[in-house]
């Protein structure tokens, strides 16, 4: 599946970096006092349920927490790193047809971010990197335990709006698509965020 879609992914990358090149024009005359920003957000997310086993037991609505540190010079593009806590989905196995058990799937990404402003308060991010996938399992018979693994080639695409309250603080919202390649998990989150400039 991934192999079949790799041209699509490469096309996204190509378009994104092409736009980034166009964005290299500096904003002359504007010298920023605060070139770093910390974004913190939380919001609901929806898991694109592609499970084959226990598909009907998936609870697709969960939540995401995100944190992003950005270097934002006078250019339209900025760079940074992003992490977060994406609760992708929860499955509740129920008796009597299935053994009672509960599984929660979580992704903790660690990604590099390239961001570009394309209107005054709007921006788009592309993030690529790795994610730690954590499964929390609990069952009356087998107890509770966690398993974790790394997904090495994950990416996210974000469209956001940021409204400055003052020269230090902004608020906004982001639509974040996240894809983890290891298990082919994807979700879409609506994150309400606060940004601090420093």
């Amino acid at each position, binding site marked *: 599946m991934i192999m079949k879609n790799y041209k699509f992914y490469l096309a996204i990358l190509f378009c994104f970096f092409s736009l980034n090149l166009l964005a290299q024009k500096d904003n002359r005359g504007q010298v920023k006092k605060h070139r770093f920003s910390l974004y913190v957000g939380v919001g609901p997310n929806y898991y694109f349920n592609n499970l084959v086993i226990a598909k009907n037991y998936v609870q697709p609505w969960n939540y995401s927490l995100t944190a992003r540190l950005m270097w934002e010079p006078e250019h339209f593009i900025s760079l940074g790193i992003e992490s977060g806590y994406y609760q992708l989905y929860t499955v509740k196995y129920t008796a009597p047809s299935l053994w009672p058990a509960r*599984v929660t799937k979580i992704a903790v990404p660690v990604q590099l971010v390239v961001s570009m402003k394309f209107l005054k308060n709007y921006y788009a991010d592309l993030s*690529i990197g790795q994610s730690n996938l954590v499964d929390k399992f609990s069952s009356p018979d087998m107890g509770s335990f966690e398993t974790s693994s790394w997904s*090495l080639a994950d990416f996210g695409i974000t469209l956001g709006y940021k409204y400055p309250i003052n020269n230090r603080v902004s608020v906004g919202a982001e639509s974040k698509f996240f894809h983890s390649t290891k298990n*082919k998990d994807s979700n879409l989150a609506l994150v309400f965020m606060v940004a601090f400039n420093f």
Partner: protein
Amino acid sequence: MAISMTVVISCEKNNVVVPLVNPDVNLMNTLFISDTVMHKMDGIYELVDGSGDLGTEFVCKVSKSKVSFFSNSGGIYVILQYGLNPNDGSIQFAGFWRYSENTAQGLINLSLTAGEGGSDLLKSGIIRLLTISGNFSGSNNSQQPIRIKFKRAFSQYAINHEFMIFAHHGVQTTANPPYTENSLNGAIHDQDYGVNGLEYDVHLTRDHIPICAHDASIDLRVTEKGPLSGEYIQYDFAFLDSSVRLSDGEKISSVEQVLNVFIDSTTLKYMWLDVKGDPDIFKYLEPLVRGAYEQAAKVNRKIVIITDLTSDEVISEYQSWPSYSSLPTMSELSLDNAILHNCKYWGPRYSLGLLLDEVDKAHSLGIKVLSWTLNDKNLISDYLINGKFDGFISDYPAYVVYDFYTLF
């Protein structure tokens, strides 16, 4: 970022491509023929007319319920069901052909008329004049004729020197296999692909049930996507049985289930259990292996179950359960290690070379030597001609079968 993108574009699942089902009406209303009779077809055949797309020379081997041909071209094999047409005395064959190393496959229908050897085969077992005709669907779906003729029987050397050919946790498991690796389907059908042995991997579940799985963890490489992850040993077998499906829809197989079908549904002789070393694995494996020998004896089946000691950790587990030492074992580590642990088999990795002196020494001590895992056609030929091994593991047994029976 570059590394991430490289991984993105290089990931691909190893999908199962199931064999084609041949709806041939010629097989309908045919009568059963025992595999004892059909075994007389075993031998070398040559193309005498029609398309050579499937090859020009074939090794014919009969399994419990199929007739299989292994070609001299591209590892192509043909697997056929058969039956006797009571109206004209012909033997009808229907099945599929396929390449070993890619997914190209098609349907094939053959017929052995009474006058071209069918009658002799059924009555007296004489097959010198046997000629089989039919047609097969080519790569562009066009029907192509084929006519092959019995050329010679297997040599006495090939008949008397049994060469062990193991399916590497199933056949073609490196890409697009017909069955998921380590599955019951594989255990039932692998003999149709020319092997006389199965190599399956063994792990343990939380409730101490030995299961057949290569990796310690649940992996999308061989399972359908579900919510479970982590190691098999974290879950009870019944939960895995209800909550995990292999990539072709089958359930996870226990070793007991595999041994049962190995004995009851095949004529295979050898079972190679590749033990991966979970705690106390030999304690839980021993009753299953001994039970399998008892079950085989009841149905007059001669089987050999070889337990593979794959690492120092596994050997440590093996030593902690001394009663297992009376069962056949194999060491993969070294010949000295095999001698030290009184193993009946030694399994050197193929990349170590032909090891002629060591193999001679092993044979002098009554130890058989099995090389793993040979998949390259040229290497298989080289190791058969110049080596002294007693058997191979391969993902592509069609190469081994063709070469062994035509070279010797």
